[in-house]
């Protein structure tokens, strides 16, 4: 007799064959048969307190490992609650496999209890979605889901699981995994294109590499460093690209764009060649499109052909795996590098240094209040080099991007494209599950943290040693900043003074919590936070009037960036301080 087992058992075995070791989820009626099978399946499951956290945690797991993160939820509201997380993963090309329960097949389309058209809803939020109809098809669909999630341009894949398929019995025929460490990415670039690119590169005198998340997904960091050092071309990264090139490298320019440093944005305006590696010319990077890198020829490397020239016309598009293309470029440049333009490249690097000296990335130091930038600097100083930093969205995210020193790739988690507040804390949980021994620090704002803080229960229950640093400015800080600068200080609905005492809240959940209100206490608080292997929360009461600079006004060009607060504003900040005190 054939080995006949339930769809739930087939599903869990299929997951094991895809090397799934942990899932993030929340059970409900439609997936009860699956959770029953999970009871003895040997796959770790982390019970989150809201499905959105399951999606964010799976995303965090995927970003730090490069492997698909897996989340599992029930039908209806369980599935709909996933969608923000899946959209975030789609925007940032993160491989997530979402398993959603569904009512039995006979009830689909009949508005049964907890039925939602999950496939319809997920359509624009995923790279692909499948609905299983029978137990027998589970192995092939699951294998395909994992393959799809990591192949080409990675992304989230959803598999909808009607309860009837989970209880049905079948003799499974499993798909043999090819066991490849790196996903297959089709090569569309040609050797003659590489030759042309090499010529353009060697002709240039003021070149820049503009590197995004695609370089992380392709694990192209060794080739990136080699190419940059070989050609002496400096590297700027997008928010997604942070960590792919060490901050401390002499050729590192840090981040460009809306909150990029003066010297980097200035260099972008003045460069004669811009080589985009896995970056998509996002509006937060380019500012006004027609004025972006106006003097530069542009070469774009991307695994997704539809990204070539999507936002900005490029002189040469190379479609394929960033790592392979960079390797080919290295070889081509080495073959042709006669009469090196090294001295002219040196002039260019000196020029950038000069701009950096004119307007270094800096902030007004103070010992009377806690400057959020200072907290980031202290975390950066005391965290291990392989520490993973996960952020929410807003001012704290930009300060972290600006002032935290990145040494390694896959150490920076941020909902960059979608900009989903509430991401940082659950994503940190996911990362910590992937690397239990490493420091994982969730740097969050008081606004975003209140969106997903219910998962304090999860970290307490499983003793996930995530460190939570809240930069608490008692406001939706980035919104306040925009209202201040662009809406004539008409502050509308940004006040978050009505919030719990986060330290006491953490204690209530069984997690060590503390509140830091004085500059002089920051250093010690950070050291203590990072000193053990237990979850903890530190609530830093930072200067509520602090703004993120530089800033490129929306719709403006990078050349129009505002480098520092206007002088008069510094006096007005005192007034604002008084207001907050009231």
């Amino acid at each position, binding site marked *: 007799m054939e080995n006949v087992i339930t769809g739930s058992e087939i599903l869990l075995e299929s997951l094991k064959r895809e090397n799934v070791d942990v899932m993030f989820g929340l059970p409900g009626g439609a997936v009860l048969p699956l959770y029953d099978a999970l009871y003895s399946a040997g796959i770790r499951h982390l019970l989150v307190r809201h499905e959105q956290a399951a999606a964010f945690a799976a995303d965090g797991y995927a970003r730090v490992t490069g492997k698909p993160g897996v989340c599992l939820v029930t039908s209806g509201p369980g599935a709909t609650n996933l969608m923000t997380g899946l959209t975030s993963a789609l925007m940032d090309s993160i491989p997530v496999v979402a398993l959603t329960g569904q009512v039995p097949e006979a009830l689909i389309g009949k508005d049964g209890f907890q039925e939602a058209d999950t496939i*319809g809803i997920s359509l624009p939020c995923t790279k*692909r979605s499948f*609905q299983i109809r029978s137990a027998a098809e589970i192995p092939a669909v699951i294998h395909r889901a994992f393959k799809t999630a990591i192949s080409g341009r990675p992304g989230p894949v959803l598999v909808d699981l009607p309860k009837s398929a989970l209880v049905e019995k079948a003799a499974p025929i499993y798909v043999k995994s090819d066991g490849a460490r790196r996903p297959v990415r089709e090569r569309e670039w040609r050797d003659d294109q590489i030759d042309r690119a090499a010529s353009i590169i060697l002709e240039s005198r003021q070149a820049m590499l503009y590197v995004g998340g695609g370089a992380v997904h392709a694990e192209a960091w060794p080739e990136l460093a080699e190419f940059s050092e070989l050609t002496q071309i400096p590297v700027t990264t997008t928010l997604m690209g942070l960590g792919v090139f060490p901050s401390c490298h002499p050729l590192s320019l840090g981040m460009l764009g809306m909150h990029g440093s003066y010297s980097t944005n200035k260099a972008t305006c003045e460069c004669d060649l811009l080589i985009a590696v896995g970056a998509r010319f996002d509006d937060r990077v380019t500012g006004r499109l027609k004025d972006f890198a106006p003097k530069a020829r542009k070469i774009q490397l991307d695994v*997704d052909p*539809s990204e070539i*020239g999507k936002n900005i016309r490029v002189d040469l598009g190379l479609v394929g795996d960033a790592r392979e293309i960079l390797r080919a470029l290295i070889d081509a440049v080495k073959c042709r590098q006669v009469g090196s333009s090294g001295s002219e490249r040196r002039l260019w690097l000196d020029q950038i240094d000069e701009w950096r000296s004119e307007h270094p990335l800096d902030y007004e130091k103070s010992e009377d209040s806690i400057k959020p930038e200072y907290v980031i600097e202290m975390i950066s100083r005391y965290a291990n080099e392989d520490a993973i930093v996960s952020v929410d969205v807003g001012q704290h995210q930009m300060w972290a991007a600006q002032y935290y020193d990145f040494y390694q790739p896959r150490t920076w988690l941020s909902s960059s494209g979608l900009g989903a507040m509430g991401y940082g804390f659950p994503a940190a949980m996911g990362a910590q599950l992937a690397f239990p021994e490493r420091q994982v620090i969730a740097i969050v704002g008081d606004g975003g943290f209140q969106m997903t803080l219910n998962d304090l229960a999860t970290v307490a229950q499983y003793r996930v040693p995530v460190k939570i640093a809240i930069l608490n400015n008692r406001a939706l800080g980035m919104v306040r900043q925009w209202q201040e600068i662009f809406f004539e200080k008409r502050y509308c609905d940004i006040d978050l003074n009505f919030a719990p005492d986060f330290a006491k809240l953490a204690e209530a959940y069984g997690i060590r919590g503390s509140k830091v209100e004085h500059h002089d206490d920051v250093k010690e608080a950070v050291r203590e936070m990072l000193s053990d292997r237990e979850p903890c929360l530190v609530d830093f009461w930072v200067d509520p009037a602090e703004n993120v600079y530089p800033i490129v006004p929306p719709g403006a060009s990078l050349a129009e960036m505002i480098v520092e607060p206007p002088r008069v504003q510094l006096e007005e900040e005192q007034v604002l301080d008084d207001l907050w005190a009231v």
Partner: protein
Amino acid sequence: MQRVFTIDTEGDLIVICRLMNIFRRKGVKLIKWLMSATADGFRVAVLFDAAEAESEHLFNFVRRTEGVNRLASGETASALEGLLPVM
């Protein structure tokens, strides 16, 4: 300029929904949308109006869409003739 895409997909209507959503989201002016079932899945022929750069982007977007097996692009409406059986 007018352009015709002929798209062969897997036999999963979700892929067709996805394609329709792509055309909606990209703001393409549709002139004709024809569809039929084939032995392997579905065939869609789309006649639309878009600037050249846009249609090139759309071509690349559609061809990398999951579930699309084959994509051909033509320049005139006559490319539609004979492509589809009458539904």
